[in-house]
């Protein structure tokens, strides 16, 4: 709480409780809305602060609230061993739980340009084993991002683009999921980086031009996070 208050002083009163669920007290068992690892304006001009604030405090919050509501109903249904109610709750659990999982990964997949070790660099490239694996799989980072962007731009309606680790082939893959389907629970692929291509992720700024958003977002992608996830996944 103290760190939230400290960062609130820095960022202003509207962010005072951004690390805590806004709909009443979060119980020990409930999902909580995470705090962003940076301020709302930290990713500008790639992603404007208005989008970041609405994306976290409205969209992500709605998934957290929705999941906690569905979970409470599930506990009731379990107590009564009501299979009809239990099965009926699955889509709400998947949608809202997936929404939370995906956005929690997304916030960490992004990093402010000012946090990079080499200021003035346009983007922070991957390094170490992940960089080697990207080159081995796609030949170059540019080829990888071109293919990623094509896949992400091609998602019909709402969904996500992922750089993923396949634990069976022990290789890297580009994957997409629809709506809020979470990658690992639905495909067994392990997410290293995620990019939200729901219209709410970019529309206020990029309007209908999703390809422009995808072109720009590489300037704020957190390759260190991806590298850490790759190290953890490939160790198993």
């Amino acid at each position, binding site marked *: 709480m103290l760190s939230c208050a400290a960062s609130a002083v820095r960022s202003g009163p509207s962010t005072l409780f951004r690390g805590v669920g806004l709909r009443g007290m979060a119980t020990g068992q409930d999902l909580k809305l995470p705090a962003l690892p940076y301020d709302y304006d930290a990713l500008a001009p790639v992603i404007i602060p208005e989008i970041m604030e609405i994306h976290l405090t409205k969209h992500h919050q709605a998934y957290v609230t929705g999941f906690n509501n569905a979970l409470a109903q599930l506990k009731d249904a379990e107590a009564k061993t009501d299979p009809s109610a239990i099965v009926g709750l699955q889509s709400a659990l998947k949608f809202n739980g997936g929404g939370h999982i995906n956005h929690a990964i997304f916030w960490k997949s992004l990093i402010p340009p000012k946090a990079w070790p080499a200021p003035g660099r346009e983007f922070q490239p991957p390094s170490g084993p992940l960089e080697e694996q990207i080159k081995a799989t796609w030949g170059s980072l540019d080829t990888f991002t071109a293919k990623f962007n094509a896949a992400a731009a091609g998602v*019909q309606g709402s969904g996500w683009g992922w750089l993923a680790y396949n634990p069976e082939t022990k290789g890297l893959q580009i994957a997409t999921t629809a*709506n809020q389907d979470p990658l690992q629970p639905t495909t067994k692929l392990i997410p290293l980086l995620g990019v939200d291509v729901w219209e*709410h992720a970019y529309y206020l700024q990029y309007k209908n031009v999703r390809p422009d958003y995808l072109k720009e977002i590489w300037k704020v992608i957190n390759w260190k996070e991806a590298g850490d996830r790759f190290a953890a996944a490939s160790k198993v």
Partner: protein
Amino acid sequence: MNSYSMTSTLLKMKLTKVTSMVPSTVHQTSPHSIRVTRTPRPIRARFTLVTQAMSFSLPDLPYAYDALEPFVDTQTMTIHHTKHHQTYVTNVNNVVAKYSDLQGLDLVELNKRIGKGEVPSDVSTALRNNGGGHWNHTFFWKIMTNPSNTSGPGGKLKQAIEASFGSVDALKEKFNAAATTRFGSGWAWLVVTPEGKLVVTSTPNQDNPLQAGLVDQAGTPVLGLDVWEHA
């Protein structure tokens, strides 16, 4: 506002080589083999008059871009029509141009065939998204109007709504529930089912109730609402 509508008549010339199996002469050259000679016929040219639409076109809005203010703002209407809907038109035309079987179909028939799977499989997804998107938005512009132009349903529609839902308010509640609970992108619909009932339903992405076979509830849409975030 630009008008893109155009139809043209194409004179198609088909050159057909006609060979006939008759008359022919059968020669028995031995107990186990026969030889058939056919009298060759001259090549005949066939001329076929074909009238077809060049392609689908973006329809004009029935009103100005600012006509739905303050409920739907001008910028949203402009981008929605000139970018999103235009993209569906461009894309569906690109697909249809490659398949002569698809050419000349009206948009409703195209969507019905999409629903039945009676379209080439390698473009079925592209057709579903873009043929659906084009019909959906064409319909959408028509079922909206300047706020001063509407005072709710009347006549037979009102009677049918009251019979099916109890009241117009009850319909709105049910419709809005369908719209807000549609996960991801999609549409909410009021349809007349094949059995003649008024029912509220919703579809994902650019699916629509004309595409029977692909949707939970098929029917003829009476009202539709775009719940994609771009709307």
